[in-house]
């Protein structure tokens, strides 16, 4: 196997793009919370970047991509990056150094638990958050990544299509967010007073940076600089734009005005939904996927509000439902005209692919629910998940970190 310098450069650059998404997520989430919680919310993302970067090289990569054990999990042969060097690995990426592939995958492992943090924003104890994130990455993310992407993983063997993480990243985080919101309970005053985002400009900036980074997320998943990466880039941008347009249309019809935050949320929903499909669908498929994301994710938020679940930043509606729609749509609109190594979907004469996608969706939902619930209950035995009421009232920035986000200057 010969290392291709172009492919290597693209994958390394893509890893950097995906890395940027995690702090961008922090700003996206940070703008949506009240000003007394903005630092703690940003810290969730920033801290996870540090935590999972170390977890991944120590044992996470080995569990997710190491030599297969019973089609369920990777072995420990690659712990500490043992046997993970610069020679390409034929199973994963035959034209780039194995460590470049490992690094690219690390950034996916980083952002996934960071996504969940939006569900328990403004009320989770920091120490509990740290322990939960470490356990969740190990016992929920790593196994699902192995099932879908690992050589020998059972969903991989079944033929499930997930180009960049619809099941592995978005369903797992979105569904886990719903479980976390239910287990932690509602914030003080939830439903009695409307909580307004403290900085809409920060939300839009975060969403724009997420969109930018998503080109690395999806087009980088081609693991090479060529036609497939280009196609993934095009459909990613198209779906994001279409979902933002659709979300604004639906919210305009519903709320009588086009929402700026709605446009940002719609773009993110489209990016989520195109993620699993980005290497398998053409641009027409991307338009349908973006349209669907704008509708179903908006409706999911209305449902979440109606049943009074305090998923603070709507992680389940955008990532859980958006990811589910995207994974299913992959089984509908995938075509070998885009990716000859994959399979056709239902609309191209292969109904079996839609059924396989449903199995992958069900497995991801199931393991995320069970694993997240068990981890939260375990963590709660060691350290309380929630802060005290008085700490919640003064805000997590001061109660958890001892730092205000914004200070006023005393003229005296």
């Amino acid at each position, binding site marked *: 196997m010969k290392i291709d310098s172009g492919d290597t450069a693209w994958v390394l650059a893509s890893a950097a793009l995906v890395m940027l998404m995690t702090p961008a997520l922090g700003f996206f989430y940070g703008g949506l919370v*009240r*000003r007394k919680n903005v630092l703690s919310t940003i810290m969730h993302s920033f801290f996870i970047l540090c935590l999972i970067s170390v977890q991944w090289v120590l044992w996470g990569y080995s569990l997710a991509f190491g030599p297969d054990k019973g089609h369920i999990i990777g072995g420990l042969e690659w712990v500490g990056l043992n046997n993970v060097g610069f020679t390409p690995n034929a199973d994963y990426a035959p034209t780039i150094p194995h460590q470049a592939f490992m690094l690219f995958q690390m950034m996916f492992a980083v952002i996934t638990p960071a996504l969940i943090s939006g569900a328990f924003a403004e009320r989770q104890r920091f120490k509990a958050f740290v322990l939960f994130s470490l356990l969740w990455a190990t016992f929920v993310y790593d196994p699902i990544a192995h099932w879908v992407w690992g050589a020998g993983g059972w969903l991989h063997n079944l033929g499930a299509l997930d180009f960049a993480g619809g099941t592995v990243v978005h369903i797992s985080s979105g569904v886990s967010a719903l479980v976390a919101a239910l287990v932690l309970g509602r914030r003080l005053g939830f439903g009695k007073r409307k909580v307004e985002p403290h900085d809409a400009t920060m939300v839009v900036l975060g969403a724009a940076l997420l969109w930018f980074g998503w080109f690395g997320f999806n087009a980088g998943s081609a693991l090479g600089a060529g036609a497939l990466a280009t196609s993934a880039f095009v459909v990613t941008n198209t779906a994001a734009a279409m979902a933002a347009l*659709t979300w604004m249309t639906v919210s305009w019809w519903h709320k009588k*005005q086009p929402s700026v935050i709605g446009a940002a949320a719609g773009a993110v929903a489209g990016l989520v939904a195109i993620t699993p499909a980005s290497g398998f669908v053409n641009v027409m498929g991307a338009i*349908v996927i973006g349209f669907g994301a704008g509708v179903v994710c908006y409706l999911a938020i209305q449902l979440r509000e109606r049943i009074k679940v305090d998923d603070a930043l709507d992680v389940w509606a955008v990532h859980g439902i958006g990811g589910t729609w995207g994974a299913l749509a992959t089984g509908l609109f995938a075509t070998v005209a885009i990716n000859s190594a994959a399979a056709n979907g239902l609309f191209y004469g292969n109904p079996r692919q839609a059924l396989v996608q449903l199995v992958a969706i069900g497995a991801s939902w199931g393991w995320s629910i069970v694993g997240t619930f068990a981890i939260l209950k375990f963590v709660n035995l060691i350290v309380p998940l929630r802060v005290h009421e008085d700490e919640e009232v003064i805000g997590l920035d001061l109660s958890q970190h001892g730092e205000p986000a914004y*200070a006023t200057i*005393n003229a005296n």
Partner: protein
Amino acid sequence: MDATTVIAVICSVVVFAGWLVLPHSATTVKPVVIEEREPVRVSA
């Protein structure tokens, strides 16, 4: 034209046509509830 293209065109028409017919209500300023502590003052 394949089925995917037909659906994509319908979706696009729905969105673009929707923007033409949607009403725009007069701006109503929503009261923002401030429910936080006073900002911490730091001496310059």
